[in-house]
């Protein structure tokens, strides 16, 4: 084994070790933050979809504009909200 190869192997292992440590310490915090962010996002979705879910929304004209941007996460969203099937007749994501 040459000197350079050994040095390279060592720096790779060190990087992997550091990443493992970071994950060990930061992991739980990151999970909490991720959950908090998801809560904000879920609330947002609920507000925007209000009218479609039967909650009168006086700003429905403007909420409608924001709906397309929620489409991709819709399925995951309704599962998280405890609705096993899509609550909207029109969205057959599942």
């Amino acid at each position, binding site marked *: 084994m040459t000197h350079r190869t050994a040095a390279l192997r060592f720096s790779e292992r060190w990087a992997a070790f550091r990443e493992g440590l970071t994950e060990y310490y930061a992991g739980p915090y990151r999970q909490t933050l991720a959950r908090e962010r998801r809560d904000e996002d879920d609330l947002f979705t609920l507000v925007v979809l209000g009218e479609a879910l039967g909650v009168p929304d006086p700003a429905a004209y403007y909420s409608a504009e924001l709906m397309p941007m929620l489409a991709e996460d819709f399925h995951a969203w309704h599962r998280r909200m405890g609705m096993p099937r899509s609550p909207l007749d029109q969205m*057959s994501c599942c």
Partner: protein
Amino acid sequence: MLLMDERRRILFVGGKGGVGKTSLASAIALARSRRGARVLVVSTDPAHNLGHLWERDVEDEPVRLAENSSGGCVDGMEIDPERTIARHLAAVEQTMIRMLPERQHAQAREHLERARVAPGSHESAVLERIAEAAELIDGDYDLVIFDTAPSGHTLRLLALPGQLAGWTDTLLRNRDRSERFSAAMRGLTGRVEQGSSSEAELRRTLHLRRARFENLQRAITDAETCGFVVVFTAEALPVAETLEVVESLNGMHVDVAALIANRRSPNDAGDLLRARRDVEDRHLRAVHAALPEIPVIEVPLVAGELTGVEALGVLAELLQQEIVRPRTPQS
């Protein structure tokens, strides 16, 4: 500041139903245009009268109603809320189709139907068009006059920009919080997470909306640029409503540019009309006493039908004269 001052770029003409709002809004437009201004009259009243008054077909887009040699003109427009909503939802539908798989397209359309028929959509649509029209004062027109629906509707409409700005603020704060959590996560791990492009588009849309509401709110509360003209006839009910409307407008910080006492009975056309004039005088004294700082312009009762460009021209002339003449209440 005089009603016809060039600094006034936006006027709302309001008042009880049937007092002559549309006629006077059009007359003001004509008077200003004869001094070289390009004026747009926008009817926000669902019971549109602009076309009937000018004896023309007036649509959801500006239509030329009058031109003159000084370079001024009057264009007219009757807002169609349903067409506005349809266009808005069609644009949203395009975005949806772009972001959804083919099999969900029909469903996306059904999804949007709810917004079309939701209560509040009509008002939002009218507000949207008012905001668009008000933005035209930077280029296409020197003055935009809104011929509004009878008082209550219009007052609620004027309060909307402020409320909707609050709505967009709430949603933007939600997005900010979400973004902060993302940033904190990035800070913790140094790893950049895949943000969705939807997020950026969402923020952009919300920011544009808020800017529009804020600009409109600022415009209508700017006393130099924008004013409200309350039209009334000097009778008990219109006067009572006028005083209430002025109070509401003061509360909303909308400048009341003038009051117009329309269809004033003449002194020299028989006993019946003179008797009516006396009653009107009494009401006008009460108005002057209640609102001493607001100029009251009196427009006489005109013989004949007030429709068509020529008749409106006569009204415009009358209005011109009255505005310039200092008016003291009859004692």
